[in-house]
């Protein structure tokens, strides 16, 4: 984790109110920080939402990011994760003419399956660690995916 541009995962607990997401993203763009991915959803039975932000930077930059996030008035907590469980989902569209059996087998190896079959296309889903999702997407390239969508990572500290 010492290298200059290491990947980091930050979770932010914010009051679920208007424009809170822009406050977060404005902070990143205004101060020149990167967002690799960002997911957000309300925390059940509370007035808070949880954001998971994947970013990169040196220890000093990450420290600044977490401090600056903390300074935003609607931010309750900021965690920079070290030991965490991380998952990301991807949906991939293939033509039905591809080898569906192969695709289904591959999906199974990455916690996924075929979730929709249409007249012309099938949609497959995988949910795994972001690195493994990268890997999966590389492998399925040969089945000519028509469209790929990734959800961005979500994470929980162990």
């Amino acid at each position: 984790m010492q290298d200059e541009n290491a990947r980091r995962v930050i979770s932010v607990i914010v009051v679920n109110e208007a424009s809170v997401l822009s406050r977060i993203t404005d902070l990143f763009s205004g101060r020149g920080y990167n967002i690799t991915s960002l997911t957000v959803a309300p925390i059940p039975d509370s007035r808070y939402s949880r954001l998971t932000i994947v970013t990169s930077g040196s220890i000093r930059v990450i420290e600044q990011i977490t401090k600056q996030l903390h300074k935003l008035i609607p931010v309750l907590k900021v965690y920079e994760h070290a030991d965490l469980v991380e998952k990301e989902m991807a949906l991939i569209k293939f033509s039905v003419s591809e080898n569906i059996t192969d695709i289904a087998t591959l999906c199974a190896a990455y916690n996924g399956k075929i979730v929709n079959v249409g007249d012309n296309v099938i949609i497959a889903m995988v949910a795994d660690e972001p690195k493994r999702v990268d890997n999966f997407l590389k492998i399925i390239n040969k089945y000519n995916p028509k469209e790929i969508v990734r959800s961005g990572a979500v994470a929980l500290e162990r």
Partner: protein
Amino acid sequence: MQISGAQMVIEALIAEGVDTIFGYPGGAIMNVYDEIYKQNNFKHILTRHEQAAVHAAEGYSKASGKVGVALITSGPGFTNAVTGIADAYMDSIPLVVISGQVPMSLIGTDAFQEIDAVGISRSCTKHNYLVTDASDLARVLKEAFYIASSGRPGPVHVDIPKDVTAQIAEFDYSIELNLETYKPHTKGNPRQIKKAMEAISKARRPIFYLGGGIVNSNAAYEVRELVKKTGIPAVETFMARGVLSHDDDLLISMLGMHGSYAANMAMSETDLVIGLGVRFDDRVTGKLSEFAKNAGVIHVDIDPASISKLVNADYPIVGDVKNVVNEMLELSSLINPAKYSAWRESIRNFDELHPLTYHEDSARLKPQWVIERVGELLGDIANISTDVGQHQMWTAQFYPFSRPRQFISSGGLGTMGFGFPAAIGVKAASPDKVSINFTGDGSILMNCQELMTAVERKLPVINIILNNNYLGMVRQWQTLFYDKRHSETDLSVQPDFVKLAEAFGGIGYRVNTKEEFDAALKDAVEKNIVAFIEVIIERLENVMPMVPSGGSLFNMMLLEKKEKK
């Protein structure tokens, strides 16, 4: 109590003890202005530009220590105000800026005078609100005042659609605030403070690095005591001028790009930096890797994000400077002032080698003389505002400041046009002091319409225009770093400043000699009306010393050695 949103704004301002606000009416804020017309609890000062309203509120806040309030309309009213809001954000000035917005039903339709105000102010405010229901107004305004003035202060913007100011709802300002996500940390960690004091006692060449946070936390007198008890020399940032009195033996001077030789050398040779309410701004540190290279760093600040942002702190202390300095004072017996006598001596030597001075070697007056002279004649009875440029640096270098909140200037954003409206706000807050604005021939034109405000409201600001017919600071850089290509900085074509002042009902003076200057200043102070004193100064005078941008603090360009006449 069932009242309109506009009435709520008035009631909230009264409840906050506001006595003066600055503003400019317009369509979307008319309901609030209608209520202002009906009330007598606070003064409204009509500026002649929204930017000036915000700068005046800043000046008012800086001089009084209270939250400044500005009131403006939507669209261009708001965008004009943005420079002032950004200025307050950079200098941590507590403001509540209330703007009108088009009615809720028109938001997002590109309506007349509609702009996404909270979208724009988000990045230059401490916090902002778009109020969509009048029943939220009590809470929002109460939070706005609390957030603006607590922790690291800053501007809070409240945008209120016109139909919300008309809406009748329940108003109760006695509500308890419940800001679960905002809890500024004001008390420093006692163990860290003890460790820091032990480090100071072990240091051989420690230095106090005093910043504007001391002024914000009203801790100047505690800091004066700490400096005195420890016998440790101190440098001030631009924002901290007046924290120590100019005649304090332990005050070296200002440090930074235009700091004194002794201050910058002391900062370069120290073995322990004791930073109080500072943020290691680039204009202070010069090249970061060379800044206080062999020193440990104690950093006290209320904003955790300021600590270790640029310079790593060995002893980080998050807390209000006043609380922390009071705790340090209790441990001051750990420190033996005699230990630093050799260090104090070497700083005196630096100062003797290259004192902060200037040469009176030109036919025209020297700007530094003018500033020193005002200091001699008015000293403590004046509050000093400035615009931005050479005159600003000369003021910071040469005015004999004796108290905090005496010096009001745009530090972080460096806003030309700040000085005059700010000085109007200063005068409104502090009517028994003379309000001086040192300005330049470039800056004064950026808000000279405020002559009208000052004349109308009998706020007799004395503007001393140091006129070198140049946009002087840029000209200085062009001379030094652009091979004298003075691109677009020659301001030879100018208005008649005397007539300009007179046209608005003020008084104008054009001054070429020392005698004329003394007479003009005396006359302006006695007549107690708004004045322009235009002083024709040496055209090519540079601000020295100077650390070239990005250079190390100890590599200063210095004043040429000459006998001072």
